[in-house]
C-alpha cells in the first residue's frame, strides 16, 4: 500500500513540477547566455539555478595596460608595448590580493591588484650573466619567451616575495624575487635535467608549482611520466605523480599482439603511454590536485599526497566523477561533438574545487568531498557574450569570486563570476554539511530548495538533519526524493525500531493470536473435528 501511495504522490509531484517548469520558463529570465544545470542522483542533467553570475569582464584596457606605452608613466616599457593581453595562458592569485598573469603572446608577466588595475609588469629577469641579457628600458634583462605558467609565494626560508615562472620557449623555470614594479631578480634557474632518467629531448615547462619545502614541480610538454621535480637548489630529483594508461579495448588488444609479435614488429607499434596532465594546483594541506585533458575517466582529476600516491585511487575515489557525466555531447548549434577536456583546477581556501572544462567552457565546482555544487560558464564560438568563452585557459578564485582567463586570438580578458544568493546559500550549506553539522545546515538547504526544488544534496542534507532530530518519517521521504538508498536504509532502521517500540503490544497480541489459532487447528485436525463441512462432489453424485 505504501508503494502505491508514494507512487501516486510522485506522479502528482511530477505533474506539478512539469507545470511549474513550463510556466516559469515563460516568466523567468536568466542573465547568462546559457541555462544553468546540475546533475541529479540518476546522473541526468536537470535545470538548476545559477550559483554564479558574471560580475564583469576585465580587458587589457580596463587594467590600464596603455600605461606601458606611455613614456611619462613609471611602468613605461616601450612605445610598442601592447595594450591588451595576447593568448594569456595562466594566472595566479596571490593571497586574494594580487593577480599575476602570464601574458604568453606578449612575452611578459603582469601584476594586478585586487581591483584588476596594473601595478607591475615584467619582461625579463635581472641578475644573470651579461651575454644572456639584452638592453631594454629596464636595463640588462634576460627576457621571457612565451611564459606559460607561474606561481607566486612568500618564500618560507628567506621571507622574500618570490615568483616562479615556466618560461616555455627558453626551456627553463625561473625563480626570482620581486624587487619593484618592474624588476624581477633571478635567484635560480631550473633547466633540462642532464640525467639518464630524463629521456625527453626537450624541456618546455608549461605549468609550475612549489610546495612548502620549496620543491619545484613543473609540467613539461610531452613528458608523460609525471611532473618534473626539482629541489630548491635546482637539482633534479625525479618525476612525481604520473598518470596511468587507461585500459581500453585497444590497449588490451595491443598487449596481446605484443606477446606474439617479433621484436622488429614491436618496434613498429605505437606505445601505450599515459597522457600528461594539463595543470595542477595545491590545497591548503599540501595535497596536489592534477587535471588531465582526456575525455575519459582514468586519472582525469587526481589528488596526490606528498609521496606521489593518488589518494582517490580507491573505492571512494572511484565514485567521483568530474566534468560532464556524459561521454560526448553533440551540440546542435555548431554541429560539433564535445567531450570533456579538463584544463585547469583551482582549490580555494575552503577546499572548494573548481575544475575548468576547456571544451565546453564550463566551470564545475565541487566541495571538498567532491560533491558537485554547481556548473557555470559556457562555450561560444564567437565568444562575444559575457560568461561565454572560446579558449578558457585558466580558472582561479579571488575572495569569494571565481575568475576565468580567456586567451584566444580574438579575445583576451578575465571574466569575474560572483556568487548569487543561491550560490551563497549553497556554500554555507555545504560548509556545514561537510563538517557533519546537518542541523545547522538545514536552514540554508531550505533556502536552496526555495530556489531549486530539484537540488539533490538539499534533500539529502535536510533528510540527514531530520534523521538527527529523530524525525524518521520525513527523513525517509527526503531520501526517497533524492534517491539516496544508503541513507534511506539507515533512516528506515531507526524508523522500524521506533515503530516496533511504539506498537509492541499490538504486534505481540497478533503474533500470540496467530500461534494459538494454529495450535487449535492442529488439535482439531487430530481429533477429526471439522468446523466447516466441505461439499464433496463425488459424494453428492
Amino acid at each position, binding site marked *: 500500500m*505504501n*508503494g*502505491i501511495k508514494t*507512487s501516486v504522490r*510522485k506522479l502528482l509531484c511530477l505533474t506539478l513540477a512539469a507545470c511549474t517548469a513550463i510556466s516559469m520558463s515563460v516568466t523567468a529570465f536568466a542573465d547568462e547566455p546559457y541555462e544553468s544545470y546540475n546533475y541529479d542522483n*540518476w546522473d*541526468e542533467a536537470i535545470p538548476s539555478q545559477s550559483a554564479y553570475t558574471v560580475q564583469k569582464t576585465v580587458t587589457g584596457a580596463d587594467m590600464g595596460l596603455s600605461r606601458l606605452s606611455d613614456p611619462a608613466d613609471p611602468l613605461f616599457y616601450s612605445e610598442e608595448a601592447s595594450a591588451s593581453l595576447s593568448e594569456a595562458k595562466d594566472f595566479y592569485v596571490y593571497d586574494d590580493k594580487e593577480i599575476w598573469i602570464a601574458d604568453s603572446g606578449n612575452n611578459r608577466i603582469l601584476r594586478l591588484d585586487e581591483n584588476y588595475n596594473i601595478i607591475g609588469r615584467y619582461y625579463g629577469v635581472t641578475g644573470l650573466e651579461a651575454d644572456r641579457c639584452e638592453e631594454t628600458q629596464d636595463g640588462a634583462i634576460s627576457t621571457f619567451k612565451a611564459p606559460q605558467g607561474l606561481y607566486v609565494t612568500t618564500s618560507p626560508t628567506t621571507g622574500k616575495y618570490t615568483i616562479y615562472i615556466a618560461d616555455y620557449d627558453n626551456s627553463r623555470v625561473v625563480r626570482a624575487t620581486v624587487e619593484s614594479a618592474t624588476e624581477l631578480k633571478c635567484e635560480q634557474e631550473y633547466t633540462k635535467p642532464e640525467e639518464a632518467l630524463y629521456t625527453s629531448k626537450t624541456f618546455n615547462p608549461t605549468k609550475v608549482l612549489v610546495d612548502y619545502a620549496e620543491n619545484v614541480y613543473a609540467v613539461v610538454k610531452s613528458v608523460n611520466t609525471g611532473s618534473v621535480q626539482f629541489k630548491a637548489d635546482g637539482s633534479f630529483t625525479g618525476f612525481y605523480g604520473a598518470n596511468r594508461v587507461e585500459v581500453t579495448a585497444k590497449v588490451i588488444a595491443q598487449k596481446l599482439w605484443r606477446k606474439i609479435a617479433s621484436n622488429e614488429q614491436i618496434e613498429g607499434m605505437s606505445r601505450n603511454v599515459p597522457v600528461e596532465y594539463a595543470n595542477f594546483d595545491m590545497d591548503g594541506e599540501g595535497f596536489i590536485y592534477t587535471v588531465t585533458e582526456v575525455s575519459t575517466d582514468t586519472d582525469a582529476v587526481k589528488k596526490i599526497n606528498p609521496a606521489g600516491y593518488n589518494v582517490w585511487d580507491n573505492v571512494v575515489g572511484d565514485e567521483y566523477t568530474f566534468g560532464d557525466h556524459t561521454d560526448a555531447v553533440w551540440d546542435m548549434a555548431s554541429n560539433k561533438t564535445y567531450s570533456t577536456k579538463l584544463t585547469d583546477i583551482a582549490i580555494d581556501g575552503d577546499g572548494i574545487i573548481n575544475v575548468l572544462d576547456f571544451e565546453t567552457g564550463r566551470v564545475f565546482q565541487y566541495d571538498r568531498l567532491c560533491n558537485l555544487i554547481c556548473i557555470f560558464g559556457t562555450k561560444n564560438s564567437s565568444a562575444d557574450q559575457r560568461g561565454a568563452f572560446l579558449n578558457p585557459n585558466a580558472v582561479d578564485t579571488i575572495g569569494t569570486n571565481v575568475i576565468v582567463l580567456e586567451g584566444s586570438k580574438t579575445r583576451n580578458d578575465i571574466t569575474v563570476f560572483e556568487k548569487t544568493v543561491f550560490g551563497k546559500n549553497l556554500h554555507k550549506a555545504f560548509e556545514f554539511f561537510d563538517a557533519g553539522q546537518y542541523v545547522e545546515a538545514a536552514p540554508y538547504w531550505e533556502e536552496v530548495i526555495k530556489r531549486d526544488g530539484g537540488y539533490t544534496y538539499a534533500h539529502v542534507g535536510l533528510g540527514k538533519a531530520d534523521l538527527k532530530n529523530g524525525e524518521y518519517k520525513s527523513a*525517509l521521504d527526503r*531520501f*526517497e526524493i533524492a*534517491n539516496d*538508498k544508503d541513507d*534511506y*536504509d539507515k533512516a*528506515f*532502521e531507526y524508523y*522500524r525500531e521506533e515503530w516496533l517500540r511504539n506498537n509492541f503490544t499490538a504486534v505481540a497480541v497478533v503474533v500470540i493470536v496467530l500461534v494459538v489459532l494454529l495450535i487449535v487447528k492442529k488439535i482439531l485436525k487430530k481429533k477429526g473435528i471439522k468446523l466447516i463441512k466441505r461439499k*464433496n462432489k*463425488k459424494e453428492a453424485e
Partner: protein
Amino acid sequence: MYEFSTLGWVRHVVFHPFEGFEDLRWKKQGSLKVALILVVMLFIAMVANNRMVGFAFNTNTVKVFNVVPLIVQSVVYFATWVIGNWCICTLLDGEGTLKKICVYSAYALVPYIICSYIAVFISNFIITEEAIWFHAFTYLGMGWSIILMISAMKAVHQYSIPKTLVSIVLTLVAMLLILFLAILLLSLFQQVYVFVYTIYTEIAYRIRG
C-alpha cells in the same frame, strides 16, 4: 485417491515436484482458466516487483515507469514459451497439446509468483543488512519453478529427462526466433503504415488545396 478441487490440484503439483504433473495428466485435470489467471498474476508480480518493493531494494530506476517491458517479460514471454515448446515438441514426438502445455507451464510458475509476492512484501520491512531474506525468497521461487517446469515438460510430453532438457534448450532457441520474427514483422508493418499515412496526407492536402 487424488480427488482434489481445481485449486487443490495446483497445490498438489506444487508440493509434489516429481509425481504431481504425472498425476495431473493421469487424472486429466488442469484448468485453462486457472492458468490464465496465473499468467495475469505473474504480470502483477512483475509490476509489484518494480513499484512496490522496498525503496532500498529497488534497483529499477523509479523516475519513469513503463509498463510495456513488463508485459513483454511476463505475458509475451509466456506465450512464446508455450508456442515455441509446442512447435518443437510436436516435431520431437511430444504428446502435449497446446492447451496442456499452457496449463502445465502456468502451474509450474506458481512458486515463482508466490515467492515474488512474499519477497516484495517483506522487502518493505527489512533493511539492506537483512537482504538475505529478500534474496532467499527470490531464489527459492526461481529454483522451485525451474524444477517444476522441467517436471511439467517431462510429464506433458512423456519424455525422458535428457530429452526434456534438450527440448527446453530448443524451446529457448525457438523463442528467440519467434521474438525476432515478431519484431521484424512489427517494424515492417510500421513502415507500411507510415507509407499509407504519407499517401493519405498527400492526397488530403491536394484535395483541400
